[in-house]
């Protein structure tokens, strides 16, 4: 890090004196390149923090000063999400080639081990190595066992010879009960056939969310009709519950979700109604993992301008978690 970057980092961490701050601010208000440079320094700082790559001193300062401001905190959360996402994307050959195109195998291995998830990648590499070694050992061992078995089978023991003679005698006295079939033997199910390589089915696309539309049905207990069912397929991340409002008289709404016979599993305050073709509605996004199969009650409350809270509806629905 050069001196100017160091000063910029100190500015972002609130470590400069007032005259130093003013000097830098005058510079970046008059020169857009200086301003861009501070933006870049800030990105580096939050990205490094998000990847756990700052010194303890900077970390402490970052948490005590930088994260105090809601806007800056949001920036850090964005950096965290961006790092999570792009560090999991394989590099694209379309945009850039790696500088070292002729990497040796060990440098390639080191390259795969690089990054924030060093331990995880190392673990995967170690597990792969164990698998390879284990596979080699298994191959050698089973080959040796097959050879021993072949040798053993080639020379039948006295006991085996007696057993075979006995089986032959039993076969001679057995009365046939069925005509021998001329039909070929039906094919056994695939699982019972000798093991062979079969193509792995493609991973089924799992929806990111499951959704359910509910109409507000009044405090006494929803519509008299069928209980709506929210089906949550495996791998679903979130469930979106949309409550269509008959009337939209409140500025804010509160929603509470509880399992029938159980406690509250989720709640939200200060929900503003959105508007669809069907009218006003409130949407609740709930992590799918909060649900198990069973019945749930969704309670909707309205908050008027004086802060008074009115119970508006209770909607019952069933969750079928696959």
């Amino acid at each position, binding site marked *: 890090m050069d001196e100017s970057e160091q000063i910029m980092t100190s*500015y*972002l961490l609130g470590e400069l004196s007032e005259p130093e701050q003013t000097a830098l*601010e*005058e510079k*970046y*208000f*008059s020169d*857009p390149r200086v*301003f*861009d440079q501070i*933006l*870049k320094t800030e*990105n580096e700082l939050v*990205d490094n923090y998000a*990847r756990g790559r700052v010194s303890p001193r900077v970390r402490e300062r970052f948490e005590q000063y930088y994260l*105090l*401001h*809601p806007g*800056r*905190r*949001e*920036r850090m*959360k*964005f950096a965290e*999400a*961006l*790092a*999570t*996402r*792009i*560090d999991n*994307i394989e*590099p*694209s050959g*379309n*945009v*850039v*080639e*790696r*500088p070292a195109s002729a990497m040796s195998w060990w440098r390639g291995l080191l390259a795969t081990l*690089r*990054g*924030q998830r060093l331990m995880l990648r190392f673990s995967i590499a170690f597990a792969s190595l164990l698998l390879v070694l284990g596979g080699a050992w298994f191959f050698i061992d089973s080959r040796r066992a097959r050879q021993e078995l072949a040798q053993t089978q080639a020379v039948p023991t006295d006991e085996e010879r007696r057993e075979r003679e006995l089986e032959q005698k039993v076969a001679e006295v057995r009365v046939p009960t069925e005509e021998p079939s001329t039909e070929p033997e039906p094919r056994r199910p695939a699982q019972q056939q000798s093991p062979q390589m079969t193509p792995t089915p493609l991973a089924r696309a799992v929806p*990111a969310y499951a959704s359910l539309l509910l109409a507000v049905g009044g405090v006494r207990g929803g519509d008299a009709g069928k209980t709506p069912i929210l089906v949550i397929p495996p791998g679903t*991340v*979130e469930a979106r519950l949309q409550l269509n409002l008959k009337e939209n008289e409140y500025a804010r709404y509160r929603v509470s979700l509880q399992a029938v016979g159980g406690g509250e599993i*989720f*709640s*939200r*305050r*200060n*929900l*503003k109604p*959105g508007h669809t073709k069907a009218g006003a*509605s409130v*949407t609740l*996004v*709930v*992590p799918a993992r*909060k649900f198990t199969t069973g019945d749930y009650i969704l309670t909707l409350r309205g908050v008027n301008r004086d802060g008074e809270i009115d119970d508006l509806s209770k909607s019952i629905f069933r969750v079928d978690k696959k």
Partner: protein
Amino acid sequence: MERGLTANAFAKLLNGLNADRERAGDKYEELRRTLIRFFEWRGAPFPEEQADKTFNRVARRLDEGVKIKNIGAYCYEVARLVCLESLKGHDSKRTPLEPDHLEVTAADADDEAVEKELRLTCLDDCLCSLPAESRELITEYYRDERGSRIDYRKTLAERLGLRRDALANRAQRLRDKLEQCVAGCLRNKSTI
């Protein structure tokens, strides 16, 4: 109580930034972006409101007939005052929503995890909305390249036929755009 900005005052402000209306618009956006970050870096609450308050005051002075040679430098002087007022005055007593404008409250311990999941979903949506070339550029530029980042970005710039600073600026603009998109998406998710 701050008075609103009149059309005449705003026209004078734009004219002071550049005689050409289109370039003046760009300059205005650029200066507003600088002001917002200035207030944010200084820890002032509601940076966007403070930036607009600064512009209002500068435009009013122009409307009153004050000659201002360098609007950027003048804006900075006004912004410092606005910042001091906001930190001392009642603006700081207003509590920004947590997180900024996003109406998700800490109802239970899982809220943070929920927010993280939502943010990632929003980020995916926003990344998908970018043209493929931009998406690849941002993912490659901000990729975790510990130790070789400078070399890596140099190679990236060469590959794309850009100067390094041009690449850095493009990546920065894309990142800002993506950040705004994610913030908007999170607001929608909490209010739809």
